[in-house]
């Protein structure tokens, strides 16, 4: 940020009273703690929470934001499949929180253990309690190990999901490196909706790419809980055929739809489905998932048998608990659970709240977008891109004509765009 924060703090300290009178007096619905500018607590500083913090302070500098985030650094899930393939390193997907920490009024390196939506308080494991006017839940996903028999704490030492980037990613990379040529990598795809719809199929591409270079007799078995490839199907099939022999007897990829993993055995290295048991040298089971634990604490998992959270599109406020807003992968919408969507919808939330805090109504016709690249080799990629606009008739977010689609084919140009996207989205999210 080029703005000098000390100057801003000096200005805001003197002006806070006048600003709050000037901007809030007209808005009776904005209840605040002690009548000052609104206090916002953000739980989770991923693509959703960090972007929200940055843009909320940019658009309404007077709000007081406390961010609660246990991780010391940001590790990006997008492009983490490249680390598995050895095309990039952990440091390439890791970024500092330094700048976003300076933007937040308070940064708490802790985990939330309780939320009281009636008293509007959040309690941390360290025993601190924070009051809020608005609570932003941006905790991503909770992984449901108990939905896969045998995936206990002991098995989790050997079987990675690598669906949250970080130590899981680094460990899975080491396992793939240690696997002998001729080995079998068994990976799985949870049933939709899940975080990053094209991610598993990109993982199949990039691990195959690594095997093709380093251990060409090896195989990738994809156990898909869905009945078919759930994202960018034509593009992935074309890439699998072109680069990895898919459809021939020399295929590196063995794709098995309707094969939800039901059990794992880390000693025998077996994955059980409804049909059979599959043995792997490295196994990578991604269990079913739901909205983050904090969403359960706040009582906002109202959809799909209590797994995901529905929101109002103008502010991303929960449909069931007032003053609680849910961002990113925890939400149930028709948007894909992508980093771009988390970033863009966090801005939608910040924009909606900025309007409310200024005594206006939030924009009744929001527009948000998704742009999501997948790499098919070390030099090619393709995209899906969509613009969603509010449709008053159906009360839903609908892409206008021609505003939704995928690449015609993979290209080197799109890999260059994917790399540029990665730098820009991380810089935008973390104020780097």
């Amino acid at each position: 940020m080029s703005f000098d924060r000390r100057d801003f703090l000096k200005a805001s300290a003197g002006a806070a009273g006048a600003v709050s009178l000037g901007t809030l007096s007209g808005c009776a619905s904005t209840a605040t703690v002690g009548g000052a500018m609104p206090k916002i607590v953000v739980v989770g500083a991923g693509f959703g929470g960090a972007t929200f913090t940055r843009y909320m302070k940019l658009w309404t500098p007077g709000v007081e934001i406390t961010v609660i985030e246990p991780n010391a650094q940001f590790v990006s899930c997008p492009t983490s499949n490249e680390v598995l393939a050895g095309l990039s390193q952990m440091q390439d997907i890791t970024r500092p929180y330094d700048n976003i920490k300076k933007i937040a009024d308070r940064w708490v390196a802790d985990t939330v253990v309780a939320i009281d939506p009636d008293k509007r308080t959040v309690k941390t494991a360290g025993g601190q309690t924070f009051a809020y006017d608005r609570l932003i839940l941006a905790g991503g996903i909770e992984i449901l190990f108990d939905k896969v028999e045998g995936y206990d704490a002991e098995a989790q030492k050997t079987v990675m999901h690598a669906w949250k980037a970080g130590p899981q990613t680094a460990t899975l990379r080491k396992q793939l490196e240690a696997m002998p040529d001729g080995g079998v990598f068994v990976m799985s795809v949870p049933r939709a909706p899940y975080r990053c719809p094209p991610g598993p199929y990109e993982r199949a591409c990039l691990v195959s790419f690594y095997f093709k270079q380093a251990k060409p007799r090896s195989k990738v078995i994809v156990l898909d809980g869905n009945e078919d490839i759930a994202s960018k199907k034509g593009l992935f099939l074309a890439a699998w055929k072109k680069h990895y022999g898919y459809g021939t007897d020399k295929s590196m990829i063995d794709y098995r739809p309707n094969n939800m993993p039901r059990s794992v055995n880390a000693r025998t290295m077996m994955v059980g489905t409804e049909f059979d048991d599959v043995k792997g040298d490295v196994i990578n089971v991604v269990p079913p998932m739901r909205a983050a634990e904090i969403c359960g604490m706040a009582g906002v998992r109202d959809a799909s048998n209590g797994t995901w959270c529905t929101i109002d599109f103008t502010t991303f406020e929960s449909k069931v608990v007032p003053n609680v807003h849910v961002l990113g992968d925890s939400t149930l919408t028709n948007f894909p659970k992508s980093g771009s969507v988390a970033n863009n919808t966090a801005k939608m939330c910040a924009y909606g709240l900025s309007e409310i805090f200024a005594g206006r109504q939030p924009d009744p016709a929001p527009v948000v977008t998704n742009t999501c690249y997948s790499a098919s080799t070390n030099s090619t990629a393709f995209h899906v891109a969509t613009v969603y606009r509010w449709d008053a008739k159906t009360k839903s977010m609908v892409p206008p004509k021609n505003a939704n689609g995928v690449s015609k084919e993979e290209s080197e140009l799109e890999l260059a765009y994917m790399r540029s996207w990665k730098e820009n989205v991380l810089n935008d999210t973390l104020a780097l």
Partner: protein
Amino acid sequence: METKKLALGLLVAGMLGTVATAQAVDTRARFMAANCSYCHGTDGRSSGAIPSLAGLDAKYFVDQMKAFRDGSRPATVMGKHASGYTDAEYEAMAKYFAAIKP
């Protein structure tokens, strides 16, 4: 950065006892311009192969968006994005980016 100057301006206005008006900033244009930034960089200042938008001539911006929409300028993702906004929104975003120093 223009938006931050404006934000500070609002605070200064508050200090002087004047009430900031809704017209001070086109907040909808500012939000829609921010939709672009996860690819094109914050305030349209891009790193890498994706073009920057900061400081682009407003007419050029609008003309390119129209060309992406009707397909006369070949594109990867931009045909879809351009099809998601109205001409008036092109104008509003163009004005926002034109006012930013590259």
